[in-house]
Structure formats: structure tokens, C-alpha cells
């Protein structure tokens, strides 16, 4: 579920529904808390996160997209 809306924070302003280029919130109704209709079409740009006026959205990065890194703290030569 890439975008996750905190329904206790969301004011149902519709901004995220308006601006998501991929229309992940397709079918959401005006004046209601948006629904995440197409989570797998999220491109993890976080534009909705930064457009939300009350900070009610976070984007969960799906497991297959997790960044791979070297866990060590070794300094390379």
C-alpha cells in the first residue's frame, strides 16, 4: 500500500487526489477521505506527501523496492 493516509489527520481537502499524476486515488469522492484504489501504480515520488497541507500522508516503500546497501561502517581505502 504505498500511500497511507492517516484518517484522523486528513481533512478530506482532495489535494492529493487532484495532483497525483498516476491517479492512484482514482475514484475518490469529493469531501471524503481519499481511497487508495491503485496502490501498485504508485511510483513513490512522494508528491502527495509534500502537497498534503496537514501532513496526513506517508508513502510506504514496498519490499521489492527497498534500497540495498552495505551495512558495514568500514571506511574504504
Amino acid at each position: 500500500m504505498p500511500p497511507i493516509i492517516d484518517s484522523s489527520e486528513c481533512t478530506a481537502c482532495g489535494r492529493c487526489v487532484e495532483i497525483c499524476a498516476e491517479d492512484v486515488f482514482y475514484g475518490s469522492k469529493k469531501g471524503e477521505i481519499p481511497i487508495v484504489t491503485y496502490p501498485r501504480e504508485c511510483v513513490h515520488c512522494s508528491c502527495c506527501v509534500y502537497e498534503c497541507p496537514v501532513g496526513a500522508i506517508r508513502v510506504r516503500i514496498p519490499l521489492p523496492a527497498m534500497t540495498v546497501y552495505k551495512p558495514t561502517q568500514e571506511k574504504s581505502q
Partner: protein
Amino acid sequence: MEEQMVETDVLCIGGGIAGLMAAIRASELGAKVVVAEKGHALHSGRGRDGNDHFETYIPEVHGIDRAAFIEELLRTAKGEVSLSHEIFRAQFAKAFDIVKLWDSWGIPMKYKGKWEFAGHSFPGRAMTHIKYSGHMQKKVLIQQAIDRGVEIMNRVMGFELLRDGDGIIGALAAHTREDKVIVFRAKAVILATGKCSRLYPSLTPGWMFNDPHGGGVTGDGRAMAYRVGAQLHNVEMPQRHIGPKYFPKFGQATWVGVLKDAQGKPVGTFAPKPDRKYGDMIMEVNKLVCEQYTQSGKGPVYMDCTDMTDEDYEYMMYWMVQEGNISLLDHMKEEGIDIRRHPIEFATYPLRFGGLIVANAGAETNLKGLYAAGDEAFGDISAAATFGWIGGENAARYAKEIEAPDVERHRATIEEKKISLDRLRGRQEGPDWEEANIALQQVMYDYAGSVRNKALLQQGLSHLQRLKKKIDTTMIARNPHELAHCLEVLNMFELGELVFIMALDRKETRSLHVRPDYPFTNPLLDQAHIIQTMDGKPVIQWKPF
């Protein structure tokens, strides 16, 4: 299917960098302009959340010899796509004007009051890219467009051009939220639909929208243009890129680090230690390096920023945001990944469609009234902005000279297209767009990968054509959103087919087109390989650049 008629002088299909710049310029010259954008222009396309490198010639920096600057580009970074010098000349005659314009509009093109050159250049050679703060660029461009009276129609996907004689007279579009077809009656059309993201599988094949291009760029412009007789080139020449694994993001030149193997040895020779001015040019020289290391048992390969100074860290973090990589930074933070301590694994990203519309230095195609700009014809920000501007200018001038076209003469075509959409919406059972897209990606990956031969290509082509025939009569769209995806998939099937046809015809090995049955690069084929449809059949020609 409901129908809406929209009349305009100039129609821009795609509200990315090129489309918006074209709209701004055409409107400034007095044309009535509409932008049809598939998503929402504020955060759509590859410039959706920012970019940070703008390629430009600046006389006060590079000296008055513009030709020498272009020579440098041809020798280095831009070697990948062969284009006529005329196009480079046109770009760099104008790019600096665009830089100054953007700066005056509120897209900061200087850093701390000065032109900041960094990245995409070799140590000791001419610097070709300035750093600019592009994070808010789309907001600024949209405002400029609106101020000049441009109408932006969001959630409107162009899917067919209307041709009359040797000219374009409009386009058909589908609304992505309502069952509605929009018929555009336009004197000139500018195609600016960006790259093509979902023809080949992504880095995470089970998660196809996890793509650095975003999901909404699917080569629609190329497919539309081809169907009405415009010329395409470079179709069979795939592209590859390099970047973090598995959260693919562009911006290789924004990383201040060194590409190293697991033992900490640099894989290239350009950057012994992190260097904010040059980055690590090995990524520009050989995008396959990560894949080659892995396949030869020497992987993995890391982007190692652990030796960077605190100032370099602040610098890189600032530019990562401007580059549109804020979500990657947030993700790393959430996972406790700190680039000052953790080398990040880099990967060679999978194949991408590299086909382009043939457009001249005026962004004109071979069809009257049809223009193409940006990733559609020749990409990167500087080219998108510059040729968008030039295309908008030429389209507006052309529109002034001609009468409003009569699209009603093409009523039969319009009705036929509407019926085909109704059919997609009406079917209850059958493959949806996603199933069709996966099948397509599978064929492209297995039969039109980098290494191809005649038998493989012929087999792939026949399978693709069978699939195409099947989806033509069985694909379903449960709502307007899915209908748009179906139209994208149909476009990509068309482009996939062209990849096979052109790869079969290119009887040589060149760059990422590797033909073991023709293992040498043929210098006689240092030309544009062009395909267009004539009387419903593909016609191929070679033409000097």
C-alpha cells in the same frame, strides 16, 4: 461514449517540460493554446519533482566559439545518440536564453549567485552542465503558461492524431476519469509525451511502476505519430541507465561519491575520491559496469560516498532534493541508511525503448502542422525546454497562416475510434491492460533484449503479433482509468513490433544492439535508420544525418 469538441490553434499533447515550454511560447505569439495532459501537469513526467543539471553554452564562460563547445559535447557525453550537428547548433544557440528566462521566472539557475558548473563532464575538459534548483520548476512553468492564457486540461490522454492530406488537423483524446472522448480541432499539434517506461520490464519486474521514468510515459506520441505517417528513428536502439538498487532513481551525476567494488576499489579511473565537481564519470562512460561486474563474478558495485566531507554532504543533499529525489532521501532516512556510512548498491537498469520522432532543428516533423519536442524527439531538460520553445514558436506561426481545419470530414474515423473504446469498456471477460502489459514485457525481454539474432527476432515478432491480434479483440477496461492504460498498452504493442522490424533490418552490431549473426559495426550505416508507414505498410530507409 460522450464526446466533447475543443477548438484551438495549437494543441500540446503532454504537459511536461517540453509541452509547457511550447505552450508558453505559442501563447506568447498570440495563438490559442491547449495542453492535454494525461496525469496532472504539476507533478507529471520526468521533471515532476525536479532536475538539477541544465546543459548550456554560456559565452562569458566558454568563450565566443560555440562550435568548440559543440565539438566537446560530441566527443564526450552526447555520443550516445547520433544527431545532426544542426540540432546541436540550434539547441546551444538558444539554451542560454532559456536559462536566463527560467531564472527570471523564479527557477533559480545560479547557485550562491554564480553559474555553478558540475557533473556530466570529464576532469580537465570543458564543463557543459550548470546546476539549477529545479524542484519547483513545474509549478513555475504552469504559472507562466496560465498567465499567458494557456488552458491546461489534466486527465486527458491523447491517443490518435487526425490527418488530412499531408497535414495534421487535430487529435482524439480520452478522459481518464470519465467515459468521454475529446475531439481536438487544432491547426498545429506538438507532441511532447516524454519517454516510454513500461515496454520492457522494470528493475523490479513484479512491480512495474517502480520505474525512474514514472508510470505515465508510455511512448504514446511515437505510436500516434507513426500511425499517421510521421517518421521514427533509433527505434531498435535500446537505452540503459545506472542508479541505486532497487529504488530506481535518475540523477547519477548528483551523487558525490565513487563507484567501487565490494573490496573498496574504484571500478573506474576518473574519480579516486568523492568530487562534487565531476562526480564519477565512469557511469557516463559505461552504464553497463554494474551488470558486467555482477555477471563476471566481481559484483556487487557500490556508490561509495563515505569519504565525503561534511560540506560535500550538505551540497549533495541540497541537490538531491532539487533533482527530484526527495522520496529516496526520505526512504533512506526511514531505513536508517546514511550515505556517509553506508555504500549504496548501484545497478545497471534494464533496457528502455530508445525510439524518437524525426524532427528537425525547428521541431518540425515530416507532416505539416506536426511538431515534436523533448524526450519524444531528443531529450534532457535543456533540449526539452529549448525545442519545446522553438516548436511552440513555429507552431504558432504556422497556425496563423492557415484556416481552421474541418475535422467533420473525418467523422467516420472519429466514430470508428469511439466504437473501439466502447468495445474495450463493454467487454466483461478477458485480459486487462496489466495482463497484456506483462505479456508484452515478457516478449520484449526474451526476444528483443540486447543480444538478438534473426531467428530470435522473427520468433519474438510472430509471438508479439499473435498477442496483439488477441488483445485487439479481447482486452477489457473496467473504468476510464483502465481504459487509458489499455490505450497505452496498444501503443506499446505497436512500438514493440517496430523494435523487432527495425532490429531485423539493422544487420550489424552497434552499441546495445548486439547481433552475433552480424558481429561488426558497419561504418556505412552511420546514418539515421528511419521507419514510417506508407499505405498501411512499414517502409524503412537509411538517411545521412
